[in-house]
């Protein structure tokens, strides 16, 4: 073995085999990486970057910091000032900034930023900015004479909070907190909405997931056990609605379930209902649950089907031949084997349901709203930071559920097909 070095295996061109193999391996790896590179870049660009940008957006807003430099500087130097009684120099800095905003036309941006926590400030800023350049000391009296709101503690707290580009403020608002004269406090009974809707969204999504499971399980079983020709036909019946536009399916439910709709007309004509006793099945929570369950059903059927298809029927037969009742066979032999499909389908349906907003917006009426409808509302009103904060909370809640799921069931047991 002493002359082992002299018996190194070499390739035909004289290179050591080990090195040649390593080079080939690296090349293969590089080629494999190049093959997945498009997908990697795609995921990065269309998924991770936007989510990162959204998270950044949820605690970043420079609307005030960029347009009120003097006041920002003053706030930085006096972090412990008394909002109830800001000194004259603070008012001087404010007046200076207001005059500057008027010149640079940034009043709207700055006012909008403060308006997020102190409603009514946009017009206050506009009015102040118009007059600012003609104001003379003492500025406090001048501003308060223009509008008493300039002296309120809540406004100064709002401006102080907005004076840093990064702020948790949007998360406070998304947790039903209100800025008051004495700081952030829980909103009044008539104003709290977000946490309630979070809870409701998860509850409704849970109900929809359970309903989907109950409806999908027998269908998937039938699909998996019927002879090929019949199951293909059944599969088409499942897939046809899946391929139909979401809006078409939602409006179809409206046509069916509304008070003057097909179902109610039928029941009235059959004499089962009086004309005044028509059922209210649309524009409420019932409508949302019915329509969303229908829309999401294929997402439960398909994973269940793919799992059930590969369960050998001999297991159930063996159980029966060993004396198990049909219920025991189902519970102890068949059901456990479908668990990966149940888990995958439930996770899919639940996560899709949590983020749904078109269907609840169309059929939800007054009490069928979900949290995503508020995200869409704030998007449309240009308060993207608040929308981002609510969305981030939703994302965090789902990640938490995902983690729980991993701990309790195990993500490796998930089977999509």
């Amino acid at each position, binding site marked *: 073995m002493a002359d082992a070095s002299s018996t190194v295996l070499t390739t035909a061109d004289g290179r050591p085999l080990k090195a040649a193999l390593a080079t080939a391996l690296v090349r293969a790896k590089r080629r494999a990486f190049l093959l997945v590179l498009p997908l990697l870049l795609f995921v990065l660009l269309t998924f991770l970057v936007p989510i990162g940008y959204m998270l950044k957006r949820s605690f970043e807003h420079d609307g005030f910091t960029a347009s009120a430099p003097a006041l920002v500087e003053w706030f930085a130097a006096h972090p412990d000032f008394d909002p109830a009684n800001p000194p004259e120099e603070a008012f001087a800095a404010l007046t200076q900034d207001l005059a500057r905003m008027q010149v640079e*036309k*940034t*009043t*709207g*941006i700055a*006012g*909008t930023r403060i*308006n*997020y926590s102190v*409603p*009514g*400030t*946009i*017009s*206050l800023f506009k009015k102040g900015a118009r007059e600012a350049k003609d104001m003379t000391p003492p500025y406090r009296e001048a501003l308060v004479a223009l509008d008493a709101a300039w002296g309120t503690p809540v406004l100064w707290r709002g401006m102080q909070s907005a004076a840093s580009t990064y702020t948790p403020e949007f998360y406070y608002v998304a947790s039903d907190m209100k800025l008051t004269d004495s700081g952030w406090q829980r909103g009044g009974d*008539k*104003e*709290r*909405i977000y946490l*309630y*809707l979070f809870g*409701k969204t998860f509850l409704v999504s849970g109900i929809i997931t359970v309903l989907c499971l109950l409806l999908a399980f027998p269908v998937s079983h039938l699909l998996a056990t019927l002879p090929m020709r019949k199951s293909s036909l059944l599969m088409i019946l499942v897939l046809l609605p899946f391929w139909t536009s979401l809006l078409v399916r939602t409006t179809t439910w409206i046509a069916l379930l*509304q*008070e*003057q709709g097909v179902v109610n007309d039928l029941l009235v004509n059959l004499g089962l209902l009086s004309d005044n006793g028509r059922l209210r099945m649309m*524009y409420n929570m019932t409508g949302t649950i019915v329509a969303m369950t229908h829309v999401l059903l294929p997402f439960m059927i398909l994973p269940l089907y793919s799992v059930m298809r590969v369960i050998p029927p001999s297991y159930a037969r063996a159980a029966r031949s060993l004396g198990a009742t049909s219920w025991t066979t189902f519970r102890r032999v068949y059901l456990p084997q479908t668990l990966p499909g149940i888990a995958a389908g439930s996770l899919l349906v639940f996560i899709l349901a949590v983020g749904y907003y078109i269907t609840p*917006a*169309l059929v939800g*009426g*007054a*009490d069928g*709203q979900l949290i995503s409808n*508020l995200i869409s*509302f*704030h*998007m*449309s*009103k*240009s*308060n*993207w930071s*608040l929308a981002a904060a609510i969305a981030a909370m939703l994302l965090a809640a789902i990640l938490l559920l995902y983690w729980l799921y991993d701990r309790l069931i195990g993500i490796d047991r998930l089977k999509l097909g």
Partner: protein
Amino acid sequence: MKRILILSTALTGLAFAAQASDLTVMSWGGAYGAAQTEAFVKPFTAATGKPAVMVDSDNPAPAIKAMVEAGNVTVDVASVEYADAIRLCDEGVLEPIDAAALPAGADGTPAADDFLAGAVTECGVSTDIWANVFAYDTTKFPEGPTTVADFFDLEKFPGKRGLRKGAKAVLELALMGDGVPAAEVYSVLGTPEGVDRAFAKLDTIKSEVVWWEAGAQAPQLLADGEVAMTTAYNGRIFAAAQNEGKPFQIVWDGQIYENEMFVVPKGAPNLADAMEFVQFATSTEGLRASAQQISYGPARKSSMKEELIFKDGKTVMAPHLPTAPENLANALETSSEFWVDHDAELNERFQAWLSQ
């Protein structure tokens, strides 16, 4: 492979270049979008030879804001609500419009005097004045409701009510229904007690309300018999009554009207053409053409000099416009200042109230 890449890139580039040459106008779709296509877009192409297309949106304001923020603006002109025209302008999302370049009226009146007060702002020019009104089916109520208080009177006029899901125009309607004169609505609504009062009034009909969101839904609810009366944009009810012969009647008492604005987003691909389009559309003739398509009032005095006739050739438009004197007897102009300030706050309250 390389050749294919270059070829496809070049083709994509060409496709974008071809798209970029068309002037793109974004509006609200439905009867309104169709009217603007007939009144503005087609005549513009006919007069200037420049191709122009109309695209629909549920609400163009957030769409153009998103485009400007993303730096990928594909729309040249957008039709937005008055408060949005002001808000987006403040946020620097819109191109300023040179008011001096707007054409004089057909009778020679300078544009500044020809437009109604408030119709031209820093970044927008009014295309029409539209109103939130309520309407009912005459076959249901032969002796129909006549005042805004009747909308809230479930005993005299039983049946479901359609309302737009949102605080704006609904809270004002509630206060007027509760007897607040139009002139005092915003000062009342500016106080916490006033807001409580509006919601208390809405509480009286809450169980009977069907909420709608898209403008086209309101006439549909009425046509389906889902509601006995509903608030709606007046032009949609007019279109349903005229074009489809629906037995709908508008109640003008308590109408809430505002200007609809054409704006140009910052970074519009055809900026010069966009400005030309805005000037073309808001000329005396442009506004006349629009008011002959749908019952929204023109914002120029010169457009109303001659009688406006609907496109069917016989219906006189004047009594169907929000700006008709008899329709303005008890009318409220939306305060954009109030809503810019309180939109978010009152909508949160509204959503909380809805889910209670």
